[in-house]
């Protein structure tokens, strides 16, 4: 595989961005990330984005946003109706052919305009499940119940994960849930969707992320310590409720194996785990041990921007590599109910 690295990223996440449209707040990120390493759109060989019409509440919503990439003269460009991490994957594939050296990736959403947990119910089987309107928290509560009853976790253990996420988020300016809360206080929370408590569910955010990939020596020119993508793979599980064991993730396990997670020590992992329960499932599926720091940014529990949270995990992991905080990291992205779909990316410094 050709050596491709994350060389720069820029993100913005807030509880709600009220006075700017998606295009208005993405333009500074899309251009800022290029300016931060001294390149322009003319240097970019491929542009790729991820977003959702359902969250934007408008068909072809991404058509407006592409104007922000400054596509005059025309650009080579694509879009996935997925988290921006899959846009990064599409760009990485394209870069493997050796024809382009630099790609711009972005992902975004502004979910504060509606009720995201209800909107996500429209992802379910449209004939048998969606008409029952099971919201996203209810669907994950099924997994939480299975995990607890199987003995894989306890309410207290989940509270520990939630408390730690808040501690980590305290030092992340982009996190929206940063207030420290003890395990005892989380244990005292009334369930929101039994057994999930408010601290077990994601802190919803508006925002986005723009990121630059560069190949080989071009990456070394643009960044002192590029975060090299050593493996990247994505897989899906079955969708139908009841056919999956929700206490494990086959898709994350296979993607992790394909990406080579266990080939060496993992210093830290940025997991797309919107719920405490998803963190548990992913940590086990990827075989991460106690020597790996999980979600040093606070993770998606502390700031969950749909369509960008996976890309932000990659950006966060890459930034830590670039900063020299570690040498090897894992980042994941996810999609669908109970993390039906997972992407795993292994990043390393030189």
């Amino acid at each position, binding site marked *: 595989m*050709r*050596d491709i690295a994350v060389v720069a990223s820029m993100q913005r996440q807030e509880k709600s961005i009220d006075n700017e*449209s998606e295009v208005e707040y993405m333009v500074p990120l899309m251009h800022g990330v290029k300016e931060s390493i001294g390149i322009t759109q003319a240097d970019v060989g491929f542009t790729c984005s991820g977003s*959702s*019409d*359902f969250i934007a509440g*408008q*068909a*072809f919503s*991404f*058509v*407006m946003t*592409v*104007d922000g990439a400054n*596509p*005059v*003269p*025309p*650009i*080579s*460009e*694509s*879009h*996935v*109706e*997925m988290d921006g991490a*899959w846009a990064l994957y*599409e760009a990485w*594939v*394209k*870069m*493997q*052919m*050796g*024809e382009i050296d630099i790609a711009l990736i972005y992902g975004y959403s502004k979910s504060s305009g509606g009720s995201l947990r209800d*909107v*996500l119910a*429209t*992802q*379910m*089987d*449209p004939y048998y499940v969606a008409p029952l309107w099971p919201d996203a928290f209810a669907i994950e509560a099924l997994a939480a119940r299975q995990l607890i009853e199987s003995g894989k976790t306890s309410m207290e253990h989940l509270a520990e994960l939630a408390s730690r996420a808040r501690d980590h988020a305290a030092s992340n300016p982009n996190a929206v849930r940063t207030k420290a809360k003890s395990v005892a206080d989380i244990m005292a929370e009334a369930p929101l969707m039994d057994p999930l408590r408010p601290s077990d569910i994601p802190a919803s955010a508006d925002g986005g992320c723009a990121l630059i990939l560069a*190949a*080989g020596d071009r990456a070394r020119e643009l960044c002192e310590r590029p975060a090299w993508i050593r493996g990247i*793979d*994505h*897989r*899906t*599980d*079955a*969708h*139908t409720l009841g056919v999956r064991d929700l206490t494990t993730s*086959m*898709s994350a396990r*296979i993607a992790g194996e394909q990406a080579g997670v266990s080939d060496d020590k993992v210093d830290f992992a940025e997991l797309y785990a919107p719920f405490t329960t998803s963190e548990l499932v992913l940590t086990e599926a990827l075989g991460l041990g106690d020597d790996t720091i999980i979600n040093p940014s606070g993770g998606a529990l502390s700031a969950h921007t749909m369509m960008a949270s996976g890309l932000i995990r990659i950006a966060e992991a890459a930034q830590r590599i670039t900063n020299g905080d570690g040498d090897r990291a894992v980042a994941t992205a996810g*999609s*669908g*109910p109970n993390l*039906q*779909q997972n992407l795993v990316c292994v990043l390393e410094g030189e």
Partner: protein
Amino acid sequence: MSGSKQRAAVIGVGQTKYASTRGDVSLAGLVREAAYRALEMAGKQWSDIDAVVIGKAPDFFEGIMMPEIYLAEALGCVGKPILRVHTAGSVGGSTAVVATSLVQAGIHGTVLTLGFEKQSESNAMWALSLPSPFTTSINAGAGGYFSPIIRRYMEYSGAPELIGCMVALKDRQHALNNPYAHVQDHELTFDKVVESPMLWDPIRYSETCPSSDGACAMVLTDETGAEAHDGAVAWIHGTAMRSEANNYGGRNVVSPKASEDCAADVFAQAGITNPREQIDAVEMYVPFSWYEPMWLESLGFAEKGEGWRMVESGATKHEGGDLPVNCSGGVLSTNPIGASGMIRFAEAALQVMGEAGAHQVDGAKTAFGHAYGGGAQYYAMWVVGAEKP
């Protein structure tokens, strides 16, 4: 490491019967109908497929957010990668291009790619009348957006008023040779096209694409797979995608720069210097009749201002034309939006495979597939050939 590009080829094409309402199948049933046929033609099983790349237009058309999540089992991709592309009307073409890149980059050996739309679930015309916040929407459907651009073309080219009607009749007659095509009107005459109601002047009802349910799928494979394949093969000689802003000072709305750049890129890859001479069959995205002469010029098949003469002379007809365009009946006869681009790509492949049945262009060796979307700002194109590039 510099990276390298592998050869890729189409070994299977599958299409559903297109209709205004496919009430006999669920969404899963619709996509499987196309996927099965593609697998059958390719001589492959679900287990031979390494990854699925799926495309469709806005999720609002069916009211399901990211329907590929629900389709995971139906598309046999549990435990496998599935990637969902959405690039407006060009999406079917873009999806095929992304799927091709997975093979060309050496990531996967055999990929299933599929585009679909079940437009009977909603009203596509109003779904395409984009209401933007703080902006008055004056368009009713895509025709409302494109009709002023067509009038601009008529004015500058001096094309006779009824050229569009000639295209419409031609494509609807071509559709009679394609059992999958949605609109099958054996009684249609030129006069009936001309007399059909004016929807968006100068676009008449019969010069407009239908709203269809349907899916189209292809099996793509690498060089080894294509050489081992028993049946016909369409080698991919070039792929390209371009996007540009919807509106900017000096934009040529009749022949957007992104269209010209995309064509120049894909023809360069395929070694095509004279498209009209070198290409034997064209499947071009013509949702409104006048886009045939407009694209003929933009893509370099005709000189600027002269595309309508090719229509008038019958050069783009299956029977007797030297550059048959849309022998399948085109978008004017079948339009499940998320699949429409892929149908163009797949029909181009069928032509060079010699598998296009009654609408086969005799001896077609090189064919061109084309899709566009948004405000004529998204483009995807490919050139396929019977010979290995």
